[in-house]
Structures are given as structure tokens and as C-alpha cells.
């Protein structure tokens, strides 16, 4: 008959098996249990050289810079290394949150630096480079000593010293599957659809400070020039 069948349950001609070399080239993820971690090693001192050549311009000499991205290092203590909880995260008077204050899994840093850093030349580091520069960062954060050599073996010990290693919870309702430990059964907020006289009075707790009105440019130029409303004039016209 003419031209084939109008139904099919597989896909002849579409896609092809990946070669082992291809899978190896792209499967670079490293999990919290270190699945996918390449073998290799790097010392703090070699890491310092790499850091200063390739990282410090953006992240600062001590990983403290806030000019290109949020600080990577700072805000953790020797006590945190022991407890596995970063204490300052409880403090409302300490708004800064560095990377090392938050990250619970050292694998995350290895994985991410390897795939994405340096920002302007991602995937340019060798596996050993990543070990070295991560060793240096861990040293900056006072998680490992100056003479430390990070390897696919020693990294497991580092995990046991990550300052915020016990800082994560999955006890919430915002995961769209049952797969996590501690799945919460229910959303943590529960409003009611009250329709009349829902509260005795209206409490206005916050409004835009006057000084912030012009911080987003001239709002008149960010609205349509006709319709039910106009944008408020909050600054000079933008350049065309």
C-alpha cells in the first residue's frame, strides 16, 4: 500500500545509542554519596595558586568579596564544624549568608566548581585543579588545615566536618513527590476564605520608604501611556 502506517508504538530512525565515551564526557555530576566523583587530589597550597590566578579576581582573596557574587566564605565557626549547624543562621541580626554557611554537602561544591567555574571559562579546570581549589576554599573556611590534601578518599572526612552538614530539612510540603525522607502531609499555612467582617481592623505593617521610590527609575516610563492608570513620575526620563 501507500506510504507506511498511520500508527506506531516505537520510533524507528529516531535517536541512537550513546557511546561510552559520550556518556563519560557528559555524565559529570557528583552526588552527596560521592557517586560520580572522579579520582584525583589537590593540596591547599596548589589550590591557593589556582585561586589567586583564576578565582580571587571575582570572589576576593579570602572568598569574602561581595562585588561579583555573594561571599563564599565566612560566618562559620569551629563550634559549627563540631555541631554541624551554623549558629549564625539563627540570628536575625546577621543577614549575611555565605556559601559555606549554607552548603551541607561538600559534593555540591566539587560538582559545581567542576561544571561551572571559573564563571567566564566553565569546564576549564582539570579534576585535580578542582580538588586543589576546593581544598583551598575549605582551608579558608577553617574546615581543613593548611597542609591538607583533598582526594576522592579524604573528601569523605571533610563531609563529617562541614559546618552546616545537619542544616537541612525536608519536612515540608513543597516537594512534588513522596520520595524524600520526612514528607510533610500538609501545607504549613492554612488561610480561610472568610468573606465578611473578617478582622476587627486593618494593620498596615510596612510601606515603601520614600527614599526607595526613585530606586527603580522613572515609573512613568515603565507603564503604558494610556489606559486606566499612568505610571507615577519618580525620576528623570530614561535615555531612549
Amino acid at each position, binding site marked *: 500500500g501507500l506510504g507506511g502506517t498511520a500508527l506506531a508504538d516505537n520510533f524507528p530512525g529516531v535517536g541512537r545509542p550513546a557511546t561510552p565515551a559520550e556518556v563519560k564526557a557528559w555524565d559529570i555530576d557528583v552526588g552527596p554519596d560521592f557517586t560520580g566523583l572522579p579520582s584525583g587530589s589537590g593540596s591547599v597550597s596548589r589550590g591557593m595558586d589556582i585561586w589567586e590566578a583564576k578565582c580571587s579576581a571575582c570572589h576576593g582573596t579570602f572568598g569574602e568579596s561581595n562585588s561579583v557574587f555573594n561571599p563564599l566564605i565566612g560566618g562559620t565557626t569551629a563550634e559549627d564544624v563540631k555541631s554541624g549547624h551554623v549558629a549564625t543562621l539563627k540570628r536575625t541580626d546577621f543577614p549575611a549568608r555565605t556559601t559555606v554557611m549554607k552548603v551541607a554537602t561538600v559534593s555540591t561544591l566539587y560538582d559545581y566548581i567542576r*561544571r561551572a567555574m571559573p564563571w567566564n571559562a566553565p569546564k576549564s579546570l582539570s579534576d585535580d585543579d578542582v580538588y586543589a581549589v576546593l581544598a583551598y576554599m575549605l582551608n579558608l573556611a577553617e574546615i581543613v588545615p593548611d597542609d591538607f590534601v583533598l582526594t576522592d578518599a579524604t573528601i569523605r572526612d571533610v563531609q563529617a566536618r562541614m559546618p552546616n552538614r545537619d542544616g537541612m530539612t525536608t519536612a515540608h510540603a513543597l516537594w512534588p513527590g513522596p*520520595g524524600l525522607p520526612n514528607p510533610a502531609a500538609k501545607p504549613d499555612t492554612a488561610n480561610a476564605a472568610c468573606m465578611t467582617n473578617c478582622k476587627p481592623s486593618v494593620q498596615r505593617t510596612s510601606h515603601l520608604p520614600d527614599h526607595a521610590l526613585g530606586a527603580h527609575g522613572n515609573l512613568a516610563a515603565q507603564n*503604558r501611556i494610556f489606559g486606566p492608570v499612568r505610571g507615577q513620575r519618580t525620576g528623570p526620563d530614561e535615555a531612549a
Partner: protein
Amino acid sequence: TRGRAAAASTAVSVGDPDILNPTPWGSSLGQPVAASPYGQPSKHERGLARRQSPGLTQVAAASVSFAPLQGLFGIITPSGLHFERHHQGWQDIDPTRHRFMIDGARPEFVKTPKVYTMDDILRLPSVSRMHFIECGANTGMEWGNVAVPTVQYTHGMLSCSEFTGVPLRTLLEDCGADLKAATYVLAEGGDGSSMTRTIPIELVLSGEVLVAYGQNGEMLRPENGYPLRLIVPGVQGVSWVKWLRRVEVGDRPYATKDEAVHYIDLMPDGQHRQYSSIQECKSVITTPSGGQTLVDKGYFTISGLAWSGRGKVKRVDVSVDGGVNWVEATLQTPVLSKCLTRFILPWNWDGKPALLQSRATDETGFVQPGYGQLRAARGSRSIYHNNAIQTWQVAENGDVSNVQIL
């Protein structure tokens, strides 16, 4: 600000010159067809543009541009105004060189790891569906207090499109994935950041997760992942991996940088909620909204958007008195699952101060919380997943401003 005197006054005794006299456009020959083979908005619409929020990020290639919700209609976001969030800038990838790979965290998870070209992907059975996408950090600047003036900056990390793509499930089955053993998949981008996020297998099995190439009838825009992005309906935007190059089938979450250092929600006890992903039911009034001035007293149509990561919006209520009394708004059709829903409500403004709010309820019965309720549960330092009721205050001079109410 100039207040409501801004309204055009055209009533004159003889008549409006723009009616009595020939108009330029009514008395001349216009432009030919295909003057723009790919057309542009009117030059009078220039104000509606994607914009950054000054001071939010340090560099524009790891930043956000917000969609101008204050001037949009309906539920479809024009692709040119779709919000942007890039971690390592956007790329205009050569589609003839782009590849998509499926493999397994362990060999037993995927019988035949495969590579697909864009030719291959576009040959496979596709579905087209309308869904919202919202960044988990949307409204994040407002957790503690009012911080930004307009709905573009409070809620503009939100867009909605018709997406076309291949169900990820179809592709996994084509590779012989063991969908019983698998519990998670990892999605990975092909840009510099090679963004990775863990997706629960349940969503994939439902058929909702798409390996998409189409957006609003054409290919994805480069800023939105051309030529391939993952669509994860109901889940925050960071999981909708752009420039998608690989999906790995596995059996444990990956704790990638953007699920171990960011997109984690800091609770008052110092613990972070990890793998928080669903965008819970939320709504916002877009007209009138912060930074605008009503042209006059009288009749207006309050209009806004509602959505839920758990399904369809069931109803939206609107208050003009700061939440004491509420009236049910009219929903525009179609009302679709995990899609924006436009609501409107007639409003006769008498020139007195008003406090406008909207409150959405989704098909699970979940009611959008107020700031008091949200902060009672999560404090005010969470950054992510702020779905509190938004208040716009209308002053006597017609000026609308951003305020918070418990």
C-alpha cells in the same frame, strides 16, 4: 506625582479635534505588508519592557529581568517579555549541533543510554500545554517588608506560555529506563552553568514533564533555553532547566548547587528547607498596582492573575478594604491546571483611600495566606516561596503604592 488630573479630557462643546479633523492615519496610505517580516509592538508600547531591579544582583549575567505584569492582559506572556533568570548568561545555541542525552546513574537504570539530535526530538510525539512558570524567588524581596515599588518587581518573575514538547516519559521509555527502580531524575543544561536540578519521578510518570522546544507557537527564545528546555508544571522555574542537554535517571536527590546553596528556604530555627519546589497557590492584582495613578474617580475594572502549582485555580476573592470584606471575582476561561488564570472585578472608586487585595483558592482547597500567616509558619528570612496576599494602597489622589497588611 501628578495624581488623577492625568486623565485626558476630550469633551468639548463642538467636538474633539481628533474626530472633527482628519487624522494622519485616516487620510494617508500606510505601510506595506511584510514591512516587518517578524513584527514588533507599537512604538507607543515602549514602556512595557523587561527590567532589572537595581541592587538585586551584582552582575547582569547572573541575574533576573522582570516581566512588566503591570501592562499585560489575559494569561499568555508575550515571549519578548518573558522574565529571565540566568546563572551564567544566555546563549543562542546552534540547534544543528545541540544534543540531548539520556543515561542512568547506574547502568541498571537505563538499558540503552541514547543521544537525540534536534531532528530526532521534533519527530517524536508531542504535546502542547499552557503552563505558568514562576521563579521560586519571586516576591522574595518582600519577605521582611515592602522593598520595591511595582508589580513588575514584586511579582514579575512570572510568565505563562503554551509549550510544545515531548513528554520526558516517552523518551525514558524509548531508552528502556527502569521506571520502577528510578525515583529521581537529574536534568542538566548545556550552557556554561550546566544547571542541574533533581526532579521526582512521579512528575515524570504523570506525563506532565516535557522536553520542550516550542513556546507560544514558535521555538523557545534563546533567553528561555533555545532549542530545548525542561517543562516541570507547578514547580519553580529553576527546575525548568534551559538549554537542556541531559537527563540522568537515578535513585537519590543530587544536592546540586541550586538545591543545596540556593532555592533553600531559611526557617526561624536556622534550618533550611531543602528541595522545596512547588509554587503554592498565589495571586496578585496587576491593574491597578503599585507605582500607578488612577486617571480619575469612577468605574474601573480590577484585574489580576492567580495560579497554583497544585492544579487549577478554583476561585479568587478581592477586597478593597484591606481584607475585612471580600467579593468573588470573575475568572476568565479557559481555567487550566498549573496555568495562569486571569480574574477581573468591577470597582467603582469613590475617590477615598482603598486597600486592594486578592486571595486565590486552588482545587485542593488551599487558600492563599496573608503575611501574618506566612510569617507565623516560616519567619521572614526564607527568600523563596513567598505567596502572601499582596496589598496595593490607593490614596485620595489616585496614587497606588505597595504596602503590607497582616
